[in-house]
């Protein structure tokens, strides 16, 4: 701000050569449109210092006013340089008259159009209007809105070349900067509100965006210089709302930043912010001055409160970031107060600041507010970066955690796989053990018992050579059967095939005609090894009996499925087996025992027509059949 002041001061510094600075002028406010002649009617003209501000007189509407002053002009050697009149400001427009001739003007209010010129004016003096020697400059100031002071600046007249830089400088600060500010504010507001729209939890961003938007709207006052009369009132209401709104939003922002949550206070502030515009709307154009004095003034305490709050935040947090906001706000508040006084009570301000500054009527608030917006933006950006950084570190930690987790899971899985492997091995061992059991039992029950019985009988001398041979053949048959059934690679089908082939050959050699009938679907023929063994044993026993005792010519072997049972029927046309005889009896008991083991039944019918052995085994449901 100091740099700003210096820059502006540089413009208003020591006068360049040939530039005439009017520090005093005569003013008169007749109702006539034209000034009177030079020198005549001087009583109506009063001398006044510049810059001048004419306070409003009660209810009387403002009227145009004239200022006049004299200056000397001498033609230079060489081509004449163009002269111009420099007016730092002329809010209501007006006219420039040189030596009683119209030189140039700035549009004033018309019934259709309201004006408010913020920019400086450089009114060129047409060549030929200037006379060597004394010249009279008269400037008419347009009528302003009622109840507002009429301002007139320090005027300068001189070569365009000397005055142009001044005009440019002022234009830049007073017009260009606000234009830029409007654009930037509205753009930033757009971005930030977009962020807010997607992240409703970030209220600070929302407030910031709102503040930026409001400030953009408010700054338009320095940009909009002409407006149709119908819209003027609406515009002023919008302007008021934007100004007040900005302060209110700032208050809310400061509260949120401090961590203060007072919903009641929020509502009060919002109500106050709406109050001003509503009041103006109701009061009409004339009410503007009153509204401004009272309501706008009421924003100053709010500003002070904001200042206090940020100071408190700083004291509590003691970080650089916490200092930024209070400083910016302090600056803004001071700027606001400055502007208020410039606008409404320049005299009071003159107590603190040099008069030339006050006369310049530079409004600082919007630079102060820009500072505040920058501060807010900066804070939020820092926050944003912090959030991202912390997010990154959280992500990194998460990735780490994930890796650890994954490696743990992999470890777990390995353990599980190992366990499964072990279990499978155990299962295999168990199955193998079961098989061994089966084989051992079979050797014990089948072959074993036969050998033992035969041994006893032979030692007793109860068997002749042929009988011994027969017993040994039976043993071999048993062994063959066991090997066929218990062979690990083959299933029941294979064992059955082997069995049929073997017995076919044997029966044919014994001159018995065998006939087979196998009427069972393939999937049913999946018997457990135990069941297969017992079934074929019984069949073998029956066929052995047929060959040994029955004296049959034909044998029928049927294997079929009836309901839930598997039926094996061996029938021959021999002369029937005698129930007497050790071998036959034992064999039968054996067969019945085996059938019982499988949960089945054995039926033996023997007579003169032949013998019939019927074995019925219950079939397990499809799922169980593949058990060992």
């Amino acid at each position, binding site marked *: 701000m100091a740099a700003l002041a210096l820059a502006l001061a540089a413009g208003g510094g020591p006068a360049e050569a040939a530039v005439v600075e009017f520090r005093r002028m005569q003013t008169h406010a007749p109702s006539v449109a034209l000034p009177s002649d030079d020198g005549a009617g001087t009583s109506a003209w009063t001398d006044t210092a510049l810059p001048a501000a004419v306070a409003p007189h009660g209810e009387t509407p403002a009227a145009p006013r004239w200022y006049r002053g004299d200056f000397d002009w001498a033609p230079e050697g060489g081509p004449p340089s163009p002269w111009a009149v420099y007016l730092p400001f002329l809010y209501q427009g007006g006219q420039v008259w040189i030596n009683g001739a119209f030189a140039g003007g700035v549009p004033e209010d018309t019934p259709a159009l309201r004006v408010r010129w913020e920019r400086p004016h450089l009114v060129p003096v047409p060549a030929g209007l200037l006379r060597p020697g004394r010249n009279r400059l008269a400037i008419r100031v347009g009528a302003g809105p009622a109840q507002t002071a009429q301002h007139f600046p320090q005027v300068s007249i001189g070569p365009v070349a000397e005055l142009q830089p001044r005009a440019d400088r002022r234009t830049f600060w007073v017009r260009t900067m606000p234009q830029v500010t409007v654009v930037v504010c509205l753009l930033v507001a757009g971005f930030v509100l977009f962020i807010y729209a997607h992240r409703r939890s970030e209220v600070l961003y929302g407030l910031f965006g709102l503040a930026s938007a409001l400030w953009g709207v408010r700054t338009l006052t320095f940009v909009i210089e002409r407006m149709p009369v119908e819209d003027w009132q609406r515009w002023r209401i919008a302007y008021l709302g934007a100004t007040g709104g900005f302060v209110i939003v700032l208050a809310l922002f400061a509260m949120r930043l401090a961590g203060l949550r007072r919903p009641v206070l929020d509502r009060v502030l919002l109500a106050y912010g709406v109050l001003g515009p509503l009041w103006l709307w109701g009061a009409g154009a004339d009410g503007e001055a009153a509204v401004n004095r009272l309501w706008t003034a009421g924003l100053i305490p709010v500003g002070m409160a904001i200042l206090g709050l940020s100071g408190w935040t700083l004291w509590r947090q003691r970080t650089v970031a916490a200092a930024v906001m209070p400083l910016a706000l302090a600056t803004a508040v001071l700027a606001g107060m400055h502007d208020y006084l410039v606008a409404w009570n320049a005299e009071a301000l003159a107590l603190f600041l040099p008069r030339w500054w006050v006369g310049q009527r530079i409004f600082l608030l919007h630079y102060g507010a820009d500072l505040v917006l920058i501060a807010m933006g900066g804070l939020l950006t820092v926050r944003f970066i912090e959030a991202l950084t912390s997010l990154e570190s959280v992500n990194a930690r998460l990735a780490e955690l994930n890796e650890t987790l994954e490696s743990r899971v992999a470890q777990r899985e390995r353990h599980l796989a190992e366990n499964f492997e072990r279990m499978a091995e155990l299962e295999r061992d168990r199955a193998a053990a079961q098989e061994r059991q089966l084989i051992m039992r079979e050797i014990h029950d089948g072959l074993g018992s036969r050998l033992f019985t035969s041994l006893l009988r032979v030692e007793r001398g109860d068997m002749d050579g042929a009988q011994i041979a027969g017993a040994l*053949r039976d043993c*071999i048959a048993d062994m*063959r059967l066991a*090997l*066929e059934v218990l062979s690990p690679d*083959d299933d029941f*089908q*294979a064992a*059955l*095939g*082997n*069995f*049929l*082939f*073997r017995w*076919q050959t044997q029966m044919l*050699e014994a001159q018995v005609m065998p006939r*087979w009938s196998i009427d069972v679907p393939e999937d049913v023929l999946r018997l457990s090894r135990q069941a297969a063994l017992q079934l074929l044993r019984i069949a073998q026993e029956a066929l052995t009996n047929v060959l040994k005792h029955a004296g049959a010519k034909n044998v029928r072997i049927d294997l079929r499925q009836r309901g839930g049972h598997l039926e094996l029927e061996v029938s021959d046309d021999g002369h029937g087996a005698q129930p007497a005889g050790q071998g036959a009896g034992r064999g039968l008991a054996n067969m019945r025992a085996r059938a019982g083991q499988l949960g089945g039944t054995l039926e033996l019918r023997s007579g003169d027509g032949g013998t019939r052995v019927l074995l019925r085994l219950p079939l397990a449901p499809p799922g169980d059949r593949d058990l060992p």
Partner: protein
Amino acid sequence: MPTKVLIVEDEPEFMRRFSNAVLNDPALSLGASVSTGRAGIAMLDLQTPDVLLVDLGLPDMDGVAVIAHAARHHPACDVLVVTMFADDDHVVASIEAGASGYLLKDASAERIVASIHELRAGGAPISPGIARRVLERFRTRSAMGARTMPAAAPEPSPLTPRESELLRMIAKGFTFETIGSLLDISPHTVVAHVKKIYRKLAVHSRSEAVYEAGQLGLL
């Protein structure tokens, strides 16, 4: 002219039984009975018998070597391998080496003699177990062949669908008569098929051995 039989068997009881069976049949003549593989090979070369009865469990060498020798040098000689079980793995190995059939060790004298005669008459003893194993052999062989033998090597001739079907039915336990009636051919044709299958198996294994020897750079 009686069929000359050479017996190679190291168990004295079995040797006696076989020898007696042959001696008691006028249509057969016993060339020699030896109990070691080396003696067997020597006798093969010396006597050139019509039928060779060989046990696989010989003390000095694997009976299969004797069979291979016979197949190479005395192709006119029919080889019967003696086995306890009709579906031994060794039986199929013998057939691959060139045997024409098997004989059960506990066969009666009549059975022994009948087997020899059947063999000479063109029969081919086969059991369900052998049929199963032959099928397996051809399956693995063709799978291996597809993978290991390039186009240049002699293509192993796989089984025709009919032959596979035949083997499958034998594996189920059907007699040649039954198979003949099912396939609408005479039992004799069935037997001829089995012989052909045996020969294929032998050729198969021989050509594969040649190929492998070639691969190993032995030839």
